[in-house]
């Protein structure tokens, strides 16, 4: 029986050889909310996501998963997590249609569910006219959208999206965000990193990560007010300038 999933991160530390990536990160990710994890390159965002997914083991600290309010193991909820990594490995020789069929079979999606989901995703991503094009011949943005479609094909309880809209055009970005908002209303937990800081404002909660530390967390507008910035772009450029020697 599956219920809404939430995740609690306590004091997580991770280093790669001598290079520290995360310095004691503690965060609460509630179900039904969209959490934006934003920060400069190399700040530890992807490492954090990979730890949450069980793809990396933290050196210290713990991750607790809850399903329907009760503690659950990662193994128990793994099939209800969808992950879209920043660098995707799609099959260059398979077409968009063949990718979707491959993931349908991999996830064991019922034919009726698959058809409905496929139609919706092709409409939202505006890729319906390109279904027969091999992934190796797609533009950068189209390739990204195909990866996103594969991640959205099953109905997950948790979606982890690492820069899902990089290289995606403004119309498709808008429609993908509409789709994510609709998913939120089904109590899905969405974790997203983004390089488009206007998108950070669309999250329920934003966590600013710098050099492996969460420097601020909160509702986007309150966080901007507290920092005295009009936008996250302004905030980031200002913080980057302040850190220059």
């Amino acid at each position, binding site marked *: 029986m599956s219920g809404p999933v939430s995740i609690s991160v306590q004091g997580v530390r991770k280093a790669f050889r001598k290079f520290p990536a995360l310095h004691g990160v503690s965060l609460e990710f509630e179900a039904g909310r969209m959490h934006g994890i934003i920060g*400069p*390159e*190399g700040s530890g965002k992807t490492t954090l996501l990979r730890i949450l997914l069980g793809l990396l083991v933290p050196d210290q600290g713990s991750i607790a998963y809850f399903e329907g309010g009760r503690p659950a193991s990662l193994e128990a909820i793994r099939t209800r997590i969808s992950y879209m990594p*920043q660098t995707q490995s799609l099959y260059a020789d398979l077409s968009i249609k063949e990718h979707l069929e491959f993931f349908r079979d991999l996830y064991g999606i019922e034919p009726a569910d698959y058809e409905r989901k496929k139609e919706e995703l092709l*409409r939202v991503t*505006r*890729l319906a*006219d*390109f279904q027969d094009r091999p992934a190796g011949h797609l*533009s*950068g*943005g*189209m390739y990204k*959208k195909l990866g996103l479609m594969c991640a959205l094909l099953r109905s997950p309880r948790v979606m982890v999206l690492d*820069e899902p809209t*990089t*290289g*995606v*055009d*403004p*119309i*498709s*970005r*808008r429609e993908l*965000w*509409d789709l994510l*908002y*609709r998913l*939120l*209303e089904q109590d899905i937990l969405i974790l997203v990193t983004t*390089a*488009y*800081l*206007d*998108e950070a*404002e*669309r*999250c329920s909660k934003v966590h600013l990560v710098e050099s492996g530390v969460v420097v601020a967390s909160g509702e*986007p*507008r309150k966080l901007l007010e507290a920092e005295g910035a009009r936008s996250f*772009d302004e905030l*980031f*450029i200002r913080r*980057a*300038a302040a850190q220059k020697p």
Partner: protein
Amino acid sequence: MTQTPAVETRELVVRYGDFTAVDRVSITVERGEIFGFLGANGAGKTTTIRVLCGLLPPTEGFVRVAGIDYEQGERAIKEKVGYMSQRFTLYNDLTVGENLDFIASLRKLEPGYYAHRRRELLDMISFKKGLDATVQELSGGTKQQVSLAAALLHAPEIVFLDEPTAGVTPAGRERFWNLIHLVAERGKTVFVTTHYMDEAEQCGRIALMRDGKLVATDSPAGLKKSVFPEQVFEFDPLQRLSFSELAAFEDHEAFSFFEPYGPRFHAAAASPQTWATWAPQLEKIFRIRPIAPSLEDVFIRAVQVRR
């Protein structure tokens, strides 16, 4: 002597089998311009750029780049243009020096000139890491700056940049665009595609593509004026609204345009009459302020095919 435009196409068509990727596109880009080439994914931007760089023959139409007609030979065009492609420009496993040496050898640059040019370009991008650094050690932003230097190594007249800042941090994007302005100030023509509308604002002129066709070409200010003859407003809910509650306003008769921005939305008044009728009620739900349309609003209205 009058200089020919940097780029000139008339009725350019590119077909892949039955699929028309570029459909009768006519563009003129003057020398020294920063020209933004925008459109949805799959609109035909990269295909057009590949023709303009001499990498793909046009199916039909006239193409002249840096004063050279396509019929005169794509090799002559290649010598006049620099191209920073969307996916690949540098070898990750090679050092910065090795990458630049390789490009210099492909371009058959004379050693003395190459050494001088490399120094000049690395100074321009303020490259601090040594030539021995492998490309995979560089941050995304620095990698793109080195790619730009590589595209400029043979001193092309025109540089084509295909989504040069995708995935780069805001500070990195700002640095990259400072370089674009510097390159243009030094007399080069910059032809650039981007999905970041704040970057598109920095272009002198912008062309908008949809389904292989050119739908508009103008300055950012000109486009805003022509695409939005009516007043645009920002609506900020006085109390938090769910996405469905906000989206329900999309088909409201007061609006001729609706675009959500996170918890807020931009909308254009359908007519002064309907606006006068509805404004008092809307003001009970939203803080409303008149704004200039953003370039994202322009893009969406001009390029979107209604669902």
